[in-house]
């Protein structure tokens, strides 16, 4: 009988960290052929329109960047939390918290100029997301409540809170749909490229990548979150206030997710809607893992997934393969990346028993 043996290997050189995710992406795209063929899609046509839809025209490229912005934010949010082994699976709920805050501020302050209103909305959205993430962090550190379960369940609490608001105080007067009034013009992100939806949120997400990188490399908090993630007991023994570090991690992580929600309200929809997020919070998990929990990695994997998501629309229109192919690819990418990471740390040998 054959048996799998897993043996630790000496650490791979630095370039492997770049090459491995690329291999994972290539393998994922190859495996995506299976669902495409099952959907009776022509393989080459499907791949062609997948990339044409995302990168084929000026508008498509800009649209891919538009899509990447919330993914970068949620990817960074998850990456920052996972580095500290704070299992924040609640980016979706934190995103919604940010979107609700942005809407609330955006409809209730007419006459306030943009240069005051936008910073206010950004801070409000950040705090709302951060506060919502602080709840499971406090429950974890003070009451030992499992963070995976609480963050996941709080997503549903937030979805229904948003539903209650959209059928209640935030509902557009005279409407029976769950939809808020339009935010005031001063609350809208400026569009940076004519004839596109390329809004302020995209450079903001790029700035977040740099800030994340800076926090990781150059600040005490960056060092502490990593220490807590590697070995919480050793960190505590070494004099780190682990409770405070987890709480600060949660605030930052949730805040970043909140900014994803702000961008969707102020940059794209201008209203709050029930389907303001098609699961960006969950995509953030895949993006964080594919990006090796590194900010630059998160940026590139967010870009990859926005290519898939945007491209899948065109591909679906032309070949009839359902757009959910993008979700299947995301799931496959996460699983394959996990296996790929394993190969960087271990050798897998088949041995005869």
């Amino acid at each position, binding site marked *: 009988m054959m048996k799998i043996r897993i043996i630790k290997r000496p650490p791979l050189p630095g370039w492997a960290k770049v090459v491995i995710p690329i291999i994972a992406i290539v393998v994922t795209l190859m495996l995506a052929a299976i669902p495409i063929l099952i*959907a009776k899609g022509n393989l080459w046509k499907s791949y062609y329109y997948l990339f044409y839809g995302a990168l084929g025209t000026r508008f498509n490229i800009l649209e891919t960047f538009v899509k990447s912005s919330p993914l970068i934010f949620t990817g960074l949010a998850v990456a920052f939390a996972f580095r500290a082994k704070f299992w924040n699976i609640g980016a979706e709920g934190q995103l919604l918290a940010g979107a609700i805050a942005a809407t609330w501020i955006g409809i209730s302050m007419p006459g306030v100029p943009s240069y005051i209103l936008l910073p206010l909305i950004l801070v409000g959205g950040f705090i709302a997301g951060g506060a919502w993430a602080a709840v499971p962090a406090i*429950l974890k550190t003070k009451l030992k409540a499992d963070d*995976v*379960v609480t963050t996941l369940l709080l997503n549903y609490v937030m979805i229904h809170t948003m539903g*209650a608001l959209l059928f*209640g105080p935030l509902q557009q007067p005279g409407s029976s749909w769950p939809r808020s009034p339009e935010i005031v013009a001063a609350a809208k992100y400026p569009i940076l490229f004519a004839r596109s939806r390329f809004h302020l949120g995209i450079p903001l997400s790029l700035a977040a990548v740099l800030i994340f990188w800076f926090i990781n490399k150059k600040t005490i908090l960056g060092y502490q979150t990593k220490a807590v993630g590697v070995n919480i007991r050793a960190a505590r023994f070494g004099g780190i206030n682990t409770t405070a570090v987890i709480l600060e991690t949660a605030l930052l992580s949730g805040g970043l997710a909140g900014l994803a929600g702000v961008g969707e309200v102020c940059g794209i929809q201008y209203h709050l809607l029930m389907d303001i997020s098609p699961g960006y919070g969950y995509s953030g998990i895949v993006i964080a893992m594919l990006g090796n929990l590194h900010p630059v990695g998160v940026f590139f994997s967010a870009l990859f997934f926005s290519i898939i998501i945007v491209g899948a629309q065109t591909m679906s229109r032309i070949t009839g393969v*359902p757009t959910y192919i993008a*979700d299947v690819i995301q*799931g496959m990418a996460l699983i394959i990346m996990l296996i790929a990471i394993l190969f960087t740390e271990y050798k897998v040998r088949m041995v005869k028993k």
Partner: protein
Amino acid sequence: MIRQILEISFITGLLGATLRMATPIIYATLGEIIIERAGVLNLGIEGTMLMGAMTGFLVTITSGSLWLGILMAALVGMLLSLLMAFLAVYLGLSQHVSGLGITLFATGLAMFIYRLYFGSPTVPPTIKPFKPIAIPLLSKIPVIGPSFFNQYTLTYISWLLIPIIAILLYKTNMGLKIRTVGENPFAADTVGVNVNRTRTLSLITGGALMGIGGAFLTIANGNMFLSDVVGGRGWVSIAMVIFGNWDPLKGAAGALLFGFLDGLQLRLQGLGFKIPFHVFLLIPYLLTIIALISVSRKAAYPSALLKPYRREEKGG
């Protein structure tokens, strides 16, 4: 007089709804208990349930057989668990991330296959679901009869599964193996128990139950597939495993608690309060979190949970 009848009918209805809404959670909670007792956290549960829900529905609509739907849902649950076993048991990858990966993959796949078969119709297709079976004599008892003994066959089966799985875990050799593998895999290995195979078997058994739990939502208590048909019930089940301290009986009690909250919010919605119905929808999730918090301090996790077993990394 009329008020009294109304109240009794309210209670009967609430009890009936409690037991119905608890059924999928009982299946999934029992499944997760078997798996976690063997030392594996299966966060693939939510996606596995959704695939079960979709498969049960699809097979029923194409074959016309509800029981074939249940069977295939169980089979799909087992297949997804096999993938989980490959990743988290044999390759020893992070159980957290493997499970989430399976949930994301299975969720995407369920929606993909559904769209492939049905396109995006304006009115979702429906099937003729299971009918409740009234048990002769017992169903005639006032209040308890119509609520307890006029349920779906799958619900009755879930009640039988509670003692069966308790006996399996506590009274059989297999159960002893599962618990030892989850508490001390090194000791289990020393006495000749195949750790990885035991974990895989637990995963497959649990996965079948999760698949059935999902299918209950589309072909028994419901007659159509919607993307949010599972709606976090998998995560609720994970909370109930902790709430029930990894015990089938207490876990099922937790499932009944959620069923009660879910049934209550449905009934309250029907009373015509002037509050958005989403307020009622969030109650079960909120109270599940509170239930989880109430036991978290003394939760006794299986010692080897989250730890892959590698012979050469003793004590790691």
